[in-house]
């Protein structure tokens, strides 16, 4: 029995998905389905928090590890899901016939993401990855306007499959080199493996699938299109929970090979250049975007670059910073997408221009966007500032002065397009002065997330301590 309690958050998600499956078969109303989805999310969140002090293996030894790292990541993922569920009260941009399926698919994807955080065996890892991916492939294509979402969702799925094939290819190398699919076996043979270039190539290939989820260069091509044309609620999920899961696996792999970091020059270099390319490309491309979600898509590419700063450091400090930033980033982008969802009820695409007059139409939404954007820029008092500070600190610790300089200059470049968004919301006047009415649930979520973004920025001690503890569990 005690073993199964370790699997409680995932069980809650699976049961929730099952209930939702029957609910839609029996033709429940969307409100009921939505409430069930929201409740499952909250239950999963509570279950994840409840399992914080636990550690162990619910299944066969060596396959699936529950420790503070995995449970912490699951908590953040569940929190991301709760936010998405809460703002999906009326998912207007989702095709009318597909509303009932939406919560179920997202719950299933969340199950996969949670399993990713615990998977300690290559096949389990791969299966979790696909479980996390397929429901999202489907939901991304559910936009009410088929003309818009057709191309980009196909693109997303194809590129996702290519990336996962590359990962699979890398996994086969790892298996060939070690004769085992267990990460523990790889870690025990690390001394001999680390001297073989093939091993490092395999690790890089394995990373591909997760770099794709993170929208890191060179797997970022989907981001702009998919962000632009996926239903607002779905892309919120992709921009929050999905990113956290990807960062968790990257941390897991980096922690696995970090004892041999001395031999890992190839991989650190590759990751460093990927990071530089991602942030430069993301920021430069975002400068010219007129579509708000597309802009946020490129901004996500740039942020993938920032997170890689922590990963490539391959140190405890770096991974802690990456995990901390993952948490903060999920909250910041949730704020921005929350505004997109509210603003974009009647619009298939949300342009930057449509923000005009937001400060009159809804001062609260404007303030929410302001905090979210300030966070993405990296300005105090939000978590964006201190998150970047920690990431940069990890790189400076490795002596990468120029790298940090490049990253910091990138943040200054990014300022331009972020400020234009704020300018529209706060300064531009518009003929449309209809107030935007926001329901109580959304307001509560906006308030709580804003509070989180500022609390993490001003009193980061507790959150940082959690990240440290998680990384200790990960590396120990």
């Amino acid at each position: 029995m005690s073993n199964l309690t370790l699997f409680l958050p995932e069980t809650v998600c699976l049961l929730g998905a099952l209930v939702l499956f029957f609910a839609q078969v029996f033709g429940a109303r969307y409100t009921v389905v939505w409430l069930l989805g929201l409740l499952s999310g909250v239950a999963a969140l509570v279950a994840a928090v409840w399992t914080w002090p636990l550690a162990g293996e619910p299944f066969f030894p060596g396959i699936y590890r529950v420790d503070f790292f995995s449970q912490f990541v699951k908590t953040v993922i569940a929190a991301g899901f709760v936010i998405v569920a809460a703002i999906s009260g009326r998912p207007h941009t989702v095709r009318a016939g597909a509303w009932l399926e939406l919560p179920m698919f997202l719950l299933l994807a969340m199950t996969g993401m949670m399993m990713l955080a615990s998977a300690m065996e290559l096949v389990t890892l791969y299966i979790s990855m696909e479980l996390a991916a397929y429901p999202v492939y489907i939901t991304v294509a559910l936009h009410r306007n088929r003309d818009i979402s057709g191309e980009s969702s196909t693109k997303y799925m194809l590129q996702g499959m290519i990336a996962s094939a590359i990962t699979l290819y890398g996994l086969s190398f790892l298996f060939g080199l070690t004769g085992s699919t267990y990460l523990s076996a790889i870690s025990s043979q690390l001394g001999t493996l680390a001297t073989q270039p093939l091993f490092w190539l395999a690790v890089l290939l394995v990373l591909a699938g997760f770099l794709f989820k993170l929208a890191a260069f060179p797997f970022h091509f989907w981001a702009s299109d998919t962000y632009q044309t996926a239903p607002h609620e779905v892309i919120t999920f992709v921009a929050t929970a999905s990113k956290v899961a990807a960062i968790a696996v990257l941390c897991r792999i980096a922690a696995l090979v970090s004892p041999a970091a001395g031999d890992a020059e190839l991989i650190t270099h590759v990751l460093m250049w990927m990071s530089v390319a991602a942030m430069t490309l993301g920021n430069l491309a975002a400068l010219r975007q007129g579509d708000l979600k597309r802009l946020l898509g490129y901004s996500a590419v740039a942020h993938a670059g920032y997170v890689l700063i922590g990963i490539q450091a391959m140190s405890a400090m770096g991974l802690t910073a990456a995990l901390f930033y993952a948490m903060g980033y999920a909250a910041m982008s949730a704020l921005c997408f929350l505004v997109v969802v509210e603003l974009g009820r009647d619009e298939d695409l949300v342009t930057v221009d449509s923000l005009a007059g937001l400060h009159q139409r809804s001062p609260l939404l404007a303030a929410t966007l302001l905090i979210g954007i300030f966070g993405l820029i990296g300005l105090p008092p939000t978590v964006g500032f201190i998150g970047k500070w920690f990431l940069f600190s990890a790189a400076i610790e490795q002596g990468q002065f120029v790298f940090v300089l490049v990253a910091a200059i990138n943040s200054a470049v990014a300022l331009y397009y972020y400020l234009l968004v704020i300018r529209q919301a706060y300064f531009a006047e518009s003929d449309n002065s209809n107030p935007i009415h926001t329901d109580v649930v959304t307001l509560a979520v906006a308030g709580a997330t804003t509070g989180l973004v500022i609390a993490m920025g001003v009193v980061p001690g507790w959150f940082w301590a959690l990240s440290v503890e998680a990384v200790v569990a990960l590396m120990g």
Partner: protein
Amino acid sequence: MGDTSLLTTILLCPVVGLVLVLLTPARAVQAVRWISALSALAAGVLSVHLWRAYDTVAGGFQFVEIVPWVEQVGISYHLAVDGFSTILVMLNSIVFFTGVLTMWDLETRVKEFFAFMLLLVIGVYGVFLSQDLFFFFLFYELAVVPMYPLILIWGSGNREYAAMKLMLFLLAGSALLFPALLSIYHASGLGTFNMILLAQKAFDPDFQIFVYPFVFLGFGVLAGLFPFHGWSPTGHVAAPSAVSMLHAGVLMKLGAYGVLAVGIRLLPIGAVYWAPTFATLAAIGVVYGAFVAIRQTDFKFVIGFSSVSHMGIVVLGLNLAVLGKAGQDALNGAVFQMFAHGIMTALLFSTVGFIYDRAHSKTIADFGGLGSLMPRAVSVFIVAGLCGAGVPGLASFWAELLVFLAALKTYPIMGVAIIVSLVLTAIYILRVFSLAFFGPVNTKWEGLRELDLKGWQLLPRAILLAVLLFFGFFPRVLLDVIDGTTTGVLAAF
């Protein structure tokens, strides 16, 4: 309230003000104004108390408060003041209070305006009070953030351009600071951001020489250092009065203070190595700013470029200080100038803003004989302008005198060039006077006769004027506070 938490209490005044303003409904504009004014007044009273309680004989850092914040990485909430920050806190309080009064008539989006302004003030206090490198930088960035909406929404003229340019320049400066400050932390090996401890660490000379320019230029951008001053005049011109006051009066001092507190204190060898180069840049800025100011057609541009010139004197003083020949004078002069220029430029912008709000013109040639139409406003402006020109009896005289003497002793040729700039300053100031204030009355402005400063509108200007005169006649009151700290800082050289 004991003195043990005096600094936190000062910092909390605008924080409490901000929270209350946010909780006040947007319609209750009068309440918003009063909350802002009262929080400014409270901070001002506490600043006076701080000035009096600061023990000038003991010197050094006083009123220390340390609370561990993120222990694993050595960040602590660490406040303390030395002589320099004591007077700069005072400066901020004065400009904050008079700024709120100056904006009393504001009618558009009042709540948002005062909220952003309070946020800016929190950042400024934080920088002057923090002795933890992380918090120092956090507050530094926090002070810059609200400038964008403040200029964009309540500014005038080319405000979108000015607001964006300002943010891009200042955050590009921050981009240099990120790696530099983190390198200082990691290179120290102490695992702490405590600036007092870091200052005691002797960093490797090569490291200092490598990192110092990043620190200097990063902060120097905000101090309006030539040739990175481009954001400053355009920003001043487009900003609303109180924001120009805070911006030129206090915000630019943050840059100079950063150079002093982080650059010179923590990296003395680097500072000495680069001082000749950066002193030259600063001297060019002094002369260049004055030259450019002569040709301006817009009131605010004249003041904007005069700020570049006057802040050049501060930065020049800082660089001369480390070169040893007349260090004490140079550093005393530089810090005195931060204070004097802050008050003076606040007064100038406050008055120009007043005239602009009534006449809706800032073009100098547009006016004529304004002195007989608005005698009070113009008199105030003239006194502040003369202060800029270094007329004895006003605070700037002493500050400029000290720096010029140090310049003559250290680099005689540069010293002469700097003194020539004083003549240029007199030219551009007197040009404004003669074109706009004297001569035949331009009948177009007859209506202004009714709109001169009166009643409570005189209050903020009177306060600033009184401060300028007081320190013009009693400079020792200020020098006594900073002299001990100057000696302490220069002991490292």
